[in-house]
């Protein structure tokens, strides 16, 4: 890491000196490219009739296959890839950091964030999220960050959430994305952003006839832990809400900091899911509640189901859910252990191409498949908005749905993005379709491109007869001599049904 960093600094200085003043982003792009964040000279692709196991593993544990990734996975065992991805702190991510670390609001505490204007905060956290998804080497980590961001959804547009979400992203989601589930929930329970988003900071008992605000308590049980059919009652919601009274946010000095006000806490005895919580627990009540809900068998099952839906298939087999739930229980909610169980399972291996990419995944995977150079400016983000999946913009606490059906109306916008991207017509994004074609097609040179050779890079298998027929007819009708036609061919592949799946 150190030597790599020193090497980079030297190189960055050299590149900087060799360029006229070109802005920080061009310098970053150049530097990143120098160090391999680009299309390799030659790309091996899978060419079986079925999606190759390595491509499948990569597809599910990443935001898409960067040119050359497949070679890297093929060289080692699948287990080695999984283990490496499960230890993200050991993966050098300097080149991604170059693009993503420079957004200063992401590093501030809430109090400092209040000094920024909302559009700046929104832009930085959104760009940061997309850039990490596209460029991080810690791909599985980023996938899990996305998963928990949906699970513990916070909408930037509610109240002061926009000032508080950067800290939540850092200290809740990213801090625990591959850690212990209970730690994640505990961190979220008193995260300033969550206290605003689900009204926890308004949940108080100042006098005897105050009624608690149940908003967070309900979602904690329904969405974060036990699940809607997890066996809790309205009384449990009420009791959990009572336990969580008294958590407040400072409004002036150290604005946005959490504190516990004993005077606003309901300190009576409570019973949550059959467990008695003695009176006088004060601020420890939240720890007890989190412990009780995280140890409930419904929680193990609910989280196991959601993970299996995320990584395997929309309706995962009960056998898999059972095993993952058991791992949850046996390991105290160890997220890595559950992922190991899933990624090594036969159910996982059998589910190739069974999932439909959500818009964010589609866009990230298209950028990755093209080896695109971008700093994720507004024109790119607008595609995400249009397809209804801009980061942190889901209005309701259930997070963006991880199912195909709600997204099937976005095809038109996917086609337009695919065609614009390949034609280098998405402002602020640069792609090199010809270089990609050459790298895939190797010796024969760009003149000889054929759909049959190109398709596998994008979809992990040989094109089916009907797919090739459609693309060959296109090639025959327009000819592929002009560069625009070649780009259109690539765009069509990105727009094809197979690229919408993973």
């Amino acid at each position: 890491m150190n030597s790599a960093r020193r090497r980079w600094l030297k190189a960055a200085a050299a590149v900087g000196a060799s360029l006229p003043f070109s802005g920080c982003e061009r310098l970053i792009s150049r530097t990143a490219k120098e160090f391999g964040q680009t299309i390799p000279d030659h790309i091996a692709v899978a060419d079986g009739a079925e999606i190759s196991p390595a491509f499948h593993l990569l597809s599910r544990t990443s935001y898409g296959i960067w040119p050359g990734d497949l070679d890297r996975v093929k060289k080692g065992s699948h287990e080695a890839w999984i283990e490496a991805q499960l230890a993200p702190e050991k993966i050098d991510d300097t080149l991604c950091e170059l693009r993503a670390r420079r957004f200063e609001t992401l590093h501030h505490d809430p109090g400092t964030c209040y000094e920024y204007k909302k559009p700046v905060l929104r832009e930085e956290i959104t760009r940061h999220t997309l850039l990490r998804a596209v460029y991080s080497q810690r791909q599985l980590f980023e996938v899990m960050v996305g998963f928990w961001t949906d699970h513990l959804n916070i909408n930037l547009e509610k109240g002061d959430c926009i000032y508080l979400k950067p800290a939540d992203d850092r200290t809740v989601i990213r801090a625990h994305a591959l850690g212990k589930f209970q730690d994640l929930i505990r961190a979220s329970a008193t995260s300033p952003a969550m206290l605003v988003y689900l009204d926890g900071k308004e949940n108080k008992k100042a006098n005897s006839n105050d009624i608690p605000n149940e908003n967070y308590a309900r979602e904690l049980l329904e969405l974060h832990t036990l699940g809607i059919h997890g066996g809790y009652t309205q009384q449990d919601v009420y009791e959990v809400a009572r336990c969580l009274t008294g958590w407040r946010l400072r409004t002036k000095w150290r604005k946005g900091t959490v504190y516990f006000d004993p005077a606003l806490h309901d300190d009576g005895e409570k019973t949550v899911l059959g467990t008695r919580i003695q009176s006088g627990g004060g601020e420890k009540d939240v720890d007890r509640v989190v412990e009780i809900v995280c140890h409930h068998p419904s929680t193990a099952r609910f989280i196991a189901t959601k993970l299996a839906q995320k990584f395997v298939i929309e309706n995962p087999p009960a056998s898999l859910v059972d095993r993952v739930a058991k791992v949850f229980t046996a390991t105290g909610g160890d997220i890595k252990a559950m992922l190991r169980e899933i990624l090594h399972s036969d159910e996982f291996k059998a589910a190739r191409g069974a999932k439909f990419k959500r818009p964010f995944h589609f866009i990230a995977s298209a950028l990755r498949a093209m080896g695109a150079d971008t700093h994720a400016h507004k024109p790119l983000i607008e595609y995400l908005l249009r397809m209804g999946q801009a980061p942190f913009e889901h209005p309701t606490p259930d997070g963006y749905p991880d199912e195909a059906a709600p997204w099937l109306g976005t095809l038109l916008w996917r086609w337009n993005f695919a065609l614009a991207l390949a034609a280098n017509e998405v402002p602020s994004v640069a792609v090199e379709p010809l270089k990609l074609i050459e790298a895939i097609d190797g010796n024969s040179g760009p003149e000889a491109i054929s759909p049959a050779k190109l398709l596998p890079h994008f979809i992990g298998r040989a094109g089916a007869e009907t797919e090739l027929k459609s693309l060959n007819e296109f090639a025959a009708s327009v000819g592929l001599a002009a560069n625009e036609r070649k780009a259109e061919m690539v765009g069509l592949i990105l727009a094809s049904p197979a690229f919408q799946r993973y």
Partner: protein
Amino acid sequence: MTSRRGFLRQMMIGDESVVDAAGDQTLICIFLRGGADTLNLIVPYGDDLYYKLRPTISIAPPTANESATDVAVKLDDFYAFHPKLRPLLPLFKEGRLAIVQSVGSDNTSGSHFEAQDQMEHGESQNHVIGGGWLGRHLRSRAGREMTPLSAIAISPTIPESLRGAPSASALKSLDEVQIKNPRAVSQALTAMYGAEVGLLSQPGRATLDLLNRVERLRGKPYQVENNAAYPEDDFGSGLREIARLVKARVGLEAASVDLGGWDTHFFQGTTGGLQAEQIDLLGRGLAAFDADLSRERERVTVVVMTEFGRRIYENSSLGTDHGRGFAMIAIGSRINGGKVHGDKPDLKTEDETLLGPSGLPIIFDYRSVLAEVLSGVIGNHNLHRIFPGFQSQPVGLVSSSK
């Protein structure tokens, strides 16, 4: 461009007459997401309990000054509009706007998502039917060909209510519906999605067909009628796009529009404030839509619903928590309007149950209201298919004489 047009024409599925015959009736469903506190929209000012239970967030009763903006707007001796609904007063007076009080579902979870899903599916609690109620309506209504513009959702994603529709498109504006590339690209897409047999086959073909139809609408910038002033937001522009489609007679039968921001647990406000902002959008949007479509009134019906009402009493954060019954609004020339259907709401029961979502007791199942509109206005009598196993009760919402 001519070749593209020619290609598009050649790709048309069905003939022109099918499009023109379809969609004599358009049903617009507006969903107030978050559980709207309709007691502050349709204010029961005639009941003292309302003011007793809401010491800080009630809407003051109407006064002699009929244009006052800080008090409710009188509808009858018991009910009044929130002042931000004033733009809808003429519709009420002309008898085209009706309110049904104490509507709801049997869902007791207090969960937004479950209550919304259940209602959009048109189900009883824990009785999953499959598909949404609009989807089943579109599948079961007789005698018409479906077009890709038969069902539109003005939203990023297709809502649950349109699940299972033969086709449904989610969009924000018609101007976005196009592919700029040459026709060979469209042809290749047609071939690829045409060859699909799985999940993407139907949406792919529907999208291609939508492109063709919209192509013909474009190029004519949309002019509103009667100086209709839509709110400058997604809700307003969504309603404007729907009006445009209604007038263009492209076969639009069902449209879904969302208006969010009703989950007012905290600092709900009264004649101003968080809820009032949403009420303002709703009132101005519906009034503009009505004005813009004044020549199409015979063909357009609007229903406004939410997943549940809120508690009758305010909470300690000057808001209201999840409740049960709510008021639905229906607008249309065949709607028996100018009145509030249903008995006066029972505000008393609240004291007995402090736990769980209590609130207005429910008199009408939401499906009874929808069933009357579907059958009485839209002309789909296959209610057993739309709401299987449900026996609807008369509401009196649709006037047979008109």
